Every structure is written in C-alpha cells, then in structure tokens.
C-alpha cells in the first residue's frame, strides 16, 4: 500500500488534506512540528486528537522551537514562513525516506494565508525531492470548513491555541530562490535537521 506523511498542525486545513488522501486508499501517518516554548502543548494535543479523528495510527512529533528561533534571529524576518516550511519539509523528507513514505501531504491553500502563494510554494518545493500532495490547494475556505464539520474535525481545530508569535506581520509573498538560499547560508540547516531528528518522538494511536 502506498504510504504518505501528512504535515499536521492543529488547524482546519491539514486534517482535511489527510482525510482526502486517505479516501484514495493511501496509508497516511502524520508529523506535527511543535514550536514550544513559543506556544504551549495545545497544538500538539490538538494534532493528536485530530489524527485520531481521521484514523491516523502514527504521529511523529518534532520539537523545533529552538530551530525556529534561529530563523528569526539570523534571517530576514519577511522570509520566515518560507524558511520555516523548507526546514519542516526537509525534516519530514528525512523521516519519509527512513520509513518509506512516498509523498508528503500539506494543507496548503491559495485562498487563505497570505504567505501561501504559488511563488512561495515553488521556492519551498525546491528544498526537497519528495513529491508534495496538496489536496485542498484550490478549495474555497467554506468548502474546507463544511467538510471539517461533516467529518467532525472542525470543533477540535477551532479550539483555542496561542497563535504563531514568530511570524512577520508582512510576510514575503513572492520569495525568490536565490534570496532564500542566501538567507539559509546564515544558518546551519544540517545541524538543525539533525537536532530535530534527535528529539523526534513517534506516538502510536
């Protein structure tokens, strides 16, 4: 059976993305990236509950708060979301290669967050070789909300959690690869990935 790894936050979109791929007879496990201590345990707990709801059996939890703080300290802040995604995808790809997941799944969507643009996605894609599945890319927000209500993830996703405190108020929407690569020269990506992998936990549900 084909296996895919879902990047699961505590929000509305990613559980729906995972659910849709599961409907295609693909085995889905998840990875949650925790930005503790810049948030509390709530997003992680929500992710676990959401994973249970869509019948995911394994959730990897990667604590990358320290790594994310390196991005805000050393790199141009407007690129934070692109750099964050490239880091998360690289970590996810390492796990995928080790555990035979053929795809990564994300809940990226063009109608929502200002940093989720095609230009930024193109730059993020360049950070990994693995194929990225984006099953709700062109959904209307309401379409996703309606499905979340139907499958019972909406109330969990809408539950309170501290919003991201590390993101910029005006993120770059048209990042260029050479600018991002220049920013990444300021940090030690390999070390960051290794640190994240060392603290990785796998929760069996």
């Amino acid at each position, binding site marked *: 059976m084909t296996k895919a790894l879902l990047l699961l936050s505590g929000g509305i979109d990613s559980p729906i993305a995972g659910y849709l791929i599961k409907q295609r007879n693909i085995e889905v496990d998840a990875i949650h990236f925790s930005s503790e*201590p*810049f948030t509390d345990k709530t997003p992680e707990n929500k992710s676990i509950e959401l994973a249970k709801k869509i019948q995911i059996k394994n959730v990897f939890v990667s604590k990358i*708060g320290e790594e994310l*703080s390196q991005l805000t300290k050393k790199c141009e802040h407007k690129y934070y979301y692109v750099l964050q995604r490239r880091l998360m995808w690289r970590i996810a790809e390492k796990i995928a290669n080790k555990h035979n997941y053929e795809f990564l799944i994300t809940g990226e969507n063009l109608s929502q967050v200002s940093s989720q643009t095609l230009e930024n996605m193109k730059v993020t894609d360049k950070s990994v070789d693995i194929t990225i599945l984006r099953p709700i890319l062109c959904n209307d927000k309401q379409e996703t909300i309606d499905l979340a209500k139907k499958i019972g993830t909406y109330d969990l996703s809408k539950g309170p959690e*501290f919003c991201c*405190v*590390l993101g910029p108020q005006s993120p770059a929407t048209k990042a260029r690869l050479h600018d991002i690569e220049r920013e990444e020269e300021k940090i030690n990506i390999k070390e960051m990935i290794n640190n994240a992998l060392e603290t990785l936990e796998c929760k069996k549900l």
Partner: protein
Amino acid sequence: MTTKADSVNTYSIDYCKTKKGFEAKLKKRQKLDMNKIKQEFTVIADAGIALVIEIDNEEIIIQEYGSCLFKTCKDEEKAKEITQKIFKIGVKDD
C-alpha cells in the same frame, strides 16, 4: 507628548484572538527594549523578536512590538501586575 510613564500604564488586557489566554498590548504600538527585559527576567527562550520569560512562576511570551501573552496565568489581576513589571522595564525612555 506621551511620557514613558504614560506608555507603561496605557495598555489593554483581554483574551487573545482564540481565547487561549490573556494578552496585554501597549495601546501605542512601540518596540520594547528586549535586551533590558532579558537582563531583568529569567529567559526560557529567545527568538530575538520574541522572548519566553518566567516571572512569579508564570510563563509569558513577549513580542517586540509591545505585547505579552500569558501562557500559564489565568488570573487577570496577576497578569496586570506582571504586565506592569514587564512594560516598566521594556518600554524605552523618552
């Protein structure tokens, strides 16, 4: 003219957007002196533009642009007291 004392005392405190915890915000948006805050309080994590500190057994996330998110404190009066302590140190002199 707004003095430092005015700024320290002019903030709002309410639940944050998702109602997870209290958030105190300076009414006049201004950059806090994060270095002074770091010197004065126990720092749990430092992201430059944001700090996680511990005061009176409570964890607080401080954002550079004048906001404090209370991770653990559920008592509004205590949150106000802590906010005053942070802004007194962090609001820059006129």
